[in-house]
């Protein structure tokens, strides 16, 4: 359930090659973080997994089935939240179930559950513009979850938040993920974040994006950000990433 396989995926846009021969897997229930310099195609990988784009060569499969067209078994969480501003928190979360044709009661039940899960009880009738960044992202997560996905795709979801909120949201995400345990592919710029969250961390090279390194984060959960083991792993990851960033800036 929720096993994503990327098989020699290349993606070419009109005038440039974004990804070259990318292969890796997200195992069932695994939390994988994608790290890499800007423009290395991390977002493109997410979009390919979601089926919003199609690969130029190679393929992606989810649980053995090839991904073609928009993949309804993925949930997508955007950095800019992408909440529907004319819908309340509750209505945002109910979007997926509504689209699926569920009855009002069912939609009600689902949204009720996820509102509580992400800790937004009492805010269900607020509009997105009334919420803080952290709260908005909770809605984004709940909305994605409400669609019962096998794989959660997250595109720097906490990138727009301040440091405090960011740390808080990371813990919250893990809490939620413990309860609703699905596969997660998480794109981030932050080494700290990747090491704190991920079971594995995939380092991408500069454009055209290739998989350069994959680190296993063998830390027990709940993790302590500043434990010596965490620091070691963080250092290695950082080193690998810095190399890639240096190369990226060299090639301009």
């Amino acid at each position, binding site marked *: 359930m929720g096993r994503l396989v990327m098989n020699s995926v290349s993606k070419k846009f009109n005038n440039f090659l974004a990804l070259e021969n990318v292969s890796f897997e997200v195992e069932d229930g695994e939390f994988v973080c994608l790290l890499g310099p800007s423009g290395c195609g991390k977002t493109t990988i997410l979009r390919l997994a979601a089926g919003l784009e199609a690969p130029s060569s190679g393929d992606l499969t989810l649980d053995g089935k090839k991904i073609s067209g928009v993949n309804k078994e993925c949930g997508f969480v955007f950095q800019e939240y992408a909440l529907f501003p*004319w*819908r*309340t928190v509750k*209505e945002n979360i109910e979007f997926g179930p509504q689209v699926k044709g569920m009855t009002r009661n069912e939609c009600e039940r689902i949204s009720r559950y996820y509102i509580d899960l992400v800790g937004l009880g009492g805010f269900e009738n607020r509009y997105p513009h009334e919420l803080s960044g952290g709260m908005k992202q909770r809605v984004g997560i709940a909305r994605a979850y409400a669609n019962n996905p096998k794989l959660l795709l997250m595109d720097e979801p906490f990138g727009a938040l301040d440091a405090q909120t960011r740390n808080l949201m990371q813990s919250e995400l893990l809490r939620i993920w413990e309860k609703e345990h699905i596969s997660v592919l998480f794109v981030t710029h932050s080494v700290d974040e990747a090491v704190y969250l991920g079971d594995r961390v995939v380092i991408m090279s500069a454009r055209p994006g290739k998989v350069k390194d994959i680190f296993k984060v063998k830390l027990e959960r709940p993790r302590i950000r500043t434990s010596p083991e965490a620091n070691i792993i963080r250092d290695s990851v950082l080193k690998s990433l810095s190399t890639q960033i240096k190369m990226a800036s060299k090639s301009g």
Partner: protein
Amino acid sequence: MKNRIKILSVVIITILIAGCIESKKTPEISEPINLVKMSGQEMVQRLGTGEIAGFIMWEPYPAIAVTKGYGKNLIFSGKIWADHPCCVVAYDDDWYKKTNNSDEILKRMALVQLKSVEYINNAKQSDSPDHAQLINYTMQFGGMTDPVAANLSLADVEFVYNTNVEGTATFIQKIQDFGIFDPMKWNQSEYRNASDYANSLITNNYVEWAVNNKDEDLSKISLKEPVNIRYAYLVNDIHELPFYVGWQKGYYKDIGINIVIAEGAPFQNGAFEMQNGFKANTVDVGSLGIPPVIIHRINSNDFSNDDARVGVIAGMNNEGSVIVVANNITSMKDLQGETIGFPGPGTIQHVLFLMEADKEGLKVSY
């Protein structure tokens, strides 16, 4: 969001329904006859298509409509008020003051009017040698192509040259009663009553002189030096045929007056002629209905310089307007709630229509 849209839809639908209900209101017993301003051409056309139930207008439009079979003459204006004055010849007071020999000019204008009227009254007879020429003039001036219509249009117009102080005073009183005067302006005029105003408006001297000199040869008594007179008149108005006759037959020329058609003439109605002609000082002498003169010399006047002041020197015609109705209408009462065409508020047709409605106890909106 959804609730708000529901509320909004309800509001909009209410407005829509209210609107539709309003326009389908069942006619009450005392619904007014609705006068709507339009041009003579429009009146004839709309009567033909049935959009209006009738109109009141000066000849030749009634004749045109009748000969085309669009409708029938319901009431001649002579029936509403026998021998009522209609169009007159008037001069612009500013022109009068600044022209040296204005009196001499006006005497001769009155004389030409007299001669033209006499010509027309003779030629009206079908056995007159001038009859064919008269019909031609009528068709040209009235914008008609049908000689039958032309004959018909002449039938109910009484061409005159005499002034009519009493009739004018009656009009002024009616206009007063119908609340058409701007009260503030009326007070500024300082006329005490209808008779006072009528007397100040009309001079009979020029007609008197014309009557005394009517047998003279025109070229013998012409002005020493010819003058240009900017003349204004109403479009396609048979009432003013004497002017056209005098112009075409050269009476004005013989007597030393060079007629120049004023800027903007021929005018759609008397109101325009007063406001855009006399008041704007683009007209020296003109013919138009007496009610627009009465109304605009007050309402449109700037009393500090009296720029809309005119003087009436001669009559042009009596009667000559008709209430024309669709063929299925039998009386004024049938016109209740209907749309009737008229040349505009303040015209003589307007006042006459109100007078007739008054007689029959009907209400008219305008």
